């Protein structure tokens, strides 16, 4: 059934009358994604991308049954927008804005957790279950439905992995982008647990990077998982003390570097690949049952 977004998802775009919001809403409509409403406190009424535009999230939820929100407002408005979304009962919330103050990220994460909402971001590209719902800025046409779950901080890096997977005929169940900021609402570990419980996912690709403990915490989950995990950690050669594009990608304490994270994941049983280009093959190997491997060897003899 996929995770985070699926056939039951009904999408609301907060900030739908802004430039980015309008573009994304139009793309959702064109892709056939389940966009049901927009919110624009300043310009309610009317329609955008065929969806009605409301003054508040609670009104949008009451009228349209929206249950997921793509928050597409300026960074300084993100906290209020997310709190409103959580309070209105939206369950999956993507915070697209870059440059959100970290204290705001802290509070929205705590509040979402308290009220049972799942927040991706800030600075998240969103999540997508191809063929079901696209709550992301990824281009759905690039994805193929299939058995591989992907969890990553970054959206752009994910494209590369998706293309490689597609090349080997391996489609995706859900792609979840956590966001590149130091504090984000959802960790790798959270998503791994969801993938492990998801009937549509057979293997998981974990893409990590330097900075923070998200991948180290994820290792503890990997050790408990029934499904194979292929992991890649970016930033082995990142210079110390510099932010690598992501506000969160800053080399910190020793075990938060690439070797530390690789070691923890490998020890937990993940198949750790040294570079981006080996991911798809490692997934293919993980999905090939050892028995048929034997069988093929027998055939070759």
């Amino acid at each position, binding site marked *: 059934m996929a995770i985070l977004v699926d056939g039951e998802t009904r999408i609301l775009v907060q900030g739908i009358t802004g430039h980015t919001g309008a573009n994304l809403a139009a793309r959702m409509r064109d892709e056939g994604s389940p966009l049901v409403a927009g919110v624009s406190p300043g310009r309610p009424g009317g329609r955008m991308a065929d969806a009605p535009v409301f003054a508040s999230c609670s009104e949008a939820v009451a009228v349209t049954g929206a249950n997921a929100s793509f928050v597409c407002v300026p*960074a*300084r408005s993100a906290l209020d927008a997310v709190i409103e979304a959580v309070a209105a009962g939206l369950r999956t919330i993507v915070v697209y804005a870059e*440059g*959100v*103050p*970290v*204290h*705001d*990220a*802290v*509070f929205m*994460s*705590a*509040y979402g957790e*308290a009220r049972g909402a799942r927040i991706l971001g800030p600075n998240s590209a969103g999540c997508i279950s191809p063929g079901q719902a696209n709550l992301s*800025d*990824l*281009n759905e046409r*690039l994805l193929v439905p299939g058995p591989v779950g992907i969890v*990553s*901080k*970054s*959206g*752009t*890096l*994910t*494209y*590369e992995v998706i*293309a490689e997977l597609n090349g080997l005929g391996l489609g995706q169940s859900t792609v979840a982008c956590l966001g*590149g900021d*130091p*504090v984000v609402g959802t*960790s790798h570990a959270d998503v791994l647990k969801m993938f492990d419980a998801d009937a549509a996912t057979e293997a998981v690709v974990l*893409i990590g*990077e*330097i900075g*923070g*403990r*998200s991948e180290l*915490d994820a290792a503890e989950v990997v050790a408990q998982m029934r499904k194979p995990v292929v992991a*890649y950690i*970016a*930033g*082995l*050669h*990142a*210079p110390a003390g*510099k*932010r*690598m*594009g*992501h*506000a*969160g*990608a800053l080399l910190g*304490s020793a075990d938060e570097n690439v070797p530390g994270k690789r070691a923890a994941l490998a020890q937990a049983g993940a198949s750790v690949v*040294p*570079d*981006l*280009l080996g991911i798809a093959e490692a997934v293919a190997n993980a999905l090939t049952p050892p028995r048929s491997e034997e069988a093929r060897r027998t055939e070759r003899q």
Partner: protein
Amino acid sequence: MDLLEHQGKALLRRYGIPVPDGSLWPERPNAPGGYVVKAQVAAGGRGKAGGIHFAEDSAAADALARGLLDRKIGGHRVDAILIERRLDIRREDYLAVALDRDRRCLTLVHALGGGVEVESLPPEALTRVPVDPLIRLRDFHIARVLEAAKVEGETRRAYGEVVRALYRLVVAEDATLAEVNPLALTADGGVIAADAKVTLDDNARFRRDTPDDGDAQAAAASTLEQSLRATGAVGVEVDPDGDVVAVVSGAGLMMATLDLLVERGHKVRAVVDLGGTVLAGGEVLARVFAAVAAAGPRLTLLNAFMQTALCDEFARMLVQAQEMSPLRGRVVIRLKGRQADEGRRLLVERGFQVHEDLVPALDGLADAARGR
């Protein structure tokens, strides 16, 4: 943004935390008991690096300050010196309010015996009190620090007020760290911030009434990084002796590309995340190119995999940028994504070496490096 010590202490004072009398040299406080002379640089281990000195009288303090001026401490040039009244310290503690990014909360951190790098202390020497953002700071949080500090009476009260004020500062000023190391307990019962390290969240600049001093940060950034920041792209200087620059369409891919290049034996001068500039037009891209060209790389890899922006439009921008501000040396382009076929055709027409996939592009770069 990391504040210098004297900026941090000015902020602490605003929130009611006692700091030693002090002023920036050549001004001096009145200090019959002697002076501390401290180089104002944003570097750790200042003391060991010779950035902190004690002086018995004002003449000695002046001499020390003059000696420090323009020296390099921990890689930073000293252009401000703080002169403080010397304290009669009975005990030193470590106290900080720090953002814990993984637990997603602010945390009070305390250790008996400050003055050393907190990372060097064993974990059991640290008291960590996480503060749930839903409830903010409460008396029981402070009480746990005071238990760890083993202070009583008036000192306990004053100590508690410092903890409360430091937390208030972090929240009100959108700081990610406010570290007092050491927090001095003086012979006369005072609880005084003998040092201060405050890091402010740049993203919250819009709601801070404290005027921002961008100089400190700019000074830490290299010229290439500075000039790229002005374009909206993000540059990261890797190796000053490197001869390859990688220009990439996203932060995650930039990190991964750097790893691929280094693992393949390239010496990388810098990597650049184009970020939103891929949508900003040829003139902006030309400014990115100009900044990269100024760094004089022998080889440039342009690695773009784009789904929001259109590759053919991006190709036209590239052509325009190359005319306005040509990259010197060899350029290898990898272009994939929406309408990439048309994009690659346009670039090939202009004589660029263009690939769809990353592996051939890397091979092409390797050939170029070998002069083929």
